[in-house]
């Protein structure tokens, strides 16, 4: 939202700079006291800043690790051990970067689910939503390539499995046949593959920064939505970002860092796979090839479909469908606080997603409750996943009886405190 006043520095030197490059005014109006934001944002709104923080952490630790990592298949594994054992604080930087990837995804998943619940993707924030999905896709590509770099068993075989997905597209004329060899730079995952993954793993985060800037820009046009889902009606609905949300974000960041630190210092390998402590061996496939936890739901969807090509289509489709959400959801009210039936199906969707994650890490042949196989459960869960978007959301959003919505944000704040 445009600010109410122009930023005027009093100090003459600062004014000299500001006249030539209005950077202080820019910051003031973007995240400072000049940027006004709904006054009722709750802690679910902290996760965007936490995501930005994790992006910076990953880039900084990544750059520093790149000073020591060697992308050569004969020494890559050893160079990571060299970082952990010999580089000053290397063990710390590596643990932050490896666990930071997981934290980045934790924070982003919560951020996305906040979007689902509070209708953040609805008009006029559709492009903001699209940019978010693109950020997520870039994160997935970056994370995948990063995991290959230590050149452990999971690195190598994960790379082999994922790049082999593209062999399903061999029906495409001209490019289909050589697609996988083009990705590999050879006849299997090998030195050329490692080199290009390293190069792209370094590049993509900076592309990500650009998309994040567009994402924040797109946000600042309509401004943030709020837990009530109603539009800002007047100036009393809003407060300056600084100091209210800078303080709140700082507190949230402090708590988040405690959570992050538990992983870094006490369970740094919990989210990884022990097989990645074995150097890659192209003649020995591990008993279970498991991707990192943040890919597991999609891995489950992939394996749920017996056909190779359709499985891949379903897997990509499960993310692509997010682009259609602003139109699949026909509710005239944004926030699920006032849409009880939507809320009910949303929580089932969340539990279903967690269940898909569980199914992604066990064998499809495993027998679960009622004697059904994991594969059967994965098919049911995949069915619900798509049904939620294609059937539940369009119907429920348009047909449910909603609860009455407050007249304005400020009115709601006053009402809440009359009762209290």
């Amino acid at each position, binding site marked *: 939202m445009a600010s109410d006043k122009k930023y005027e520095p009093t100090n003459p030197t600062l004014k000299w700079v500001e006249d030539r490059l209005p950077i202080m005014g820019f910051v003031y109006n973007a995240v400072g006291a000049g940027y006004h934001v709904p006054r009722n944002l709750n802690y679910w709104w902290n996760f965007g800043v936490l995501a930005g923080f994790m992006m910076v952490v990953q880039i900084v630790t990544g750059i520093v690790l790149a000073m020591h990592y060697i992308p050569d298949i004969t020494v890559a594994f050893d160079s990571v051990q*060299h970082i952990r*054992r010999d*580089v*000053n*604080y290397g063990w710390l*930087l590596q643990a932050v970067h490896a666990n930071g990837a997981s934290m980045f995804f934790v924070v982003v998943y919560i951020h996305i689910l906040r979007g689902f619940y509070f209708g953040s993707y609805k008009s006029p924030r559709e492009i903001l939503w699209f940019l978010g999905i693109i950020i997520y896709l870039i994160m997935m590509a970056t994370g995948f390539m990063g995991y290959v770099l230590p050149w452990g068993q999971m690195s190598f075989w994960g790379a082999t499995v994922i790049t082999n997905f593209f062999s399903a597209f061999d029906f495409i004329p001209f490019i289909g046949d050589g697609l996988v060899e083009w990705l590999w730079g050879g006849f299997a995952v090998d030195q050329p593959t490692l080199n290009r993954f390293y190069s792209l793993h370094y590049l993509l985060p900076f592309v990500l920064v650009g998309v994040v800037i567009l994402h924040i820009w797109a946000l600042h046009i309509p401004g943030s939505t709020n837990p009530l889902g109603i539009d800002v009606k007047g100036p009393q609905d809003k407060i300056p970002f600084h*100091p209210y949300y800078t303080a709140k974000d*700082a507190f949230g960041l402090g708590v988040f860092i405690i959570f992050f630190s538990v992983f870094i210092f006490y369970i740094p390998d919990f989210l990884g796979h022990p097989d990645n402590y074995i150097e890659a061996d192209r003649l020995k496939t591990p008993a279970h090839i498991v991707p990192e936890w943040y890919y597991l739901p999609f891995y489950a969807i992939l394996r749920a479909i017996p056909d190779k090509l359709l499985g891949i289509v379903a897997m990509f489709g499960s993310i692509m469908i997010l682009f259609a959400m602003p139109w699949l959801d026909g509710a005239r009210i944004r926030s699920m606080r006032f849409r009880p039936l939507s809320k009910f199906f949303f929580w089932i969707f969340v539990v279903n997603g967690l269940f898909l994650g569980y199914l992604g890490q066990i064998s499809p042949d495993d027998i679960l409750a009622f004697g059904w196989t994991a594969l059967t459960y994965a098919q049911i869960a995949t069915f619900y996943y798509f049904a939620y978007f294609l059937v539940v959301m369009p119907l429920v959003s348009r047909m449910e009886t909603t609860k009455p919505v407050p007249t304005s944000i400020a009115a709601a704040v006053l009402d809440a405190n009359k009762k209290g």
Partner: protein
Amino acid sequence: MTTHDDVVEERRNFLYIATGAAGAVAAGAAVWPLIDQMNPSKDVLALSSIEVDISVIAEGESAVFLWRKNPVFIRHRTAEEIARAIADDNAEDLIDPQTDAERIQKPEWLVMSGVCTHFGCIPLDQQGDFGGWFCPCHGSHYDISGRIRKGPAPSNLPVMDYVFLDDSTIKIG
């Protein structure tokens, strides 16, 4: 009616100062590893000292050893060379005045860095106008004690820490 500015102006509040200070400590602690990781790692530091067998160096000969990835000159000086070195102890043209005694532990063993103090080239042995070393890059002449006598180099070839473990072994670094 309060204004938002009132809040922003409560700067002197102790809570804010304490929080700000703690935050600064956290930021500093977080930045230090990022800087220290560029310092030499433990495996590099492990090679920070070497033991050299000098019994293979005959009188009147020099040898070059690699120490911390840089050349070290060890010369087994003859009596004549030692005398020449001492004779120039008080020469007027010494650019970086130093006596020979200040640069050696045993007079027949000259142990010093082989990196020219101008811009880092390696001087050539038994060349130059002073019977010592000559650096071809920019024309610095060092004498038989490794002192700069002529040319652009500002100081003598550095003598690093070393000890004689016995008569035939020197530990450098």
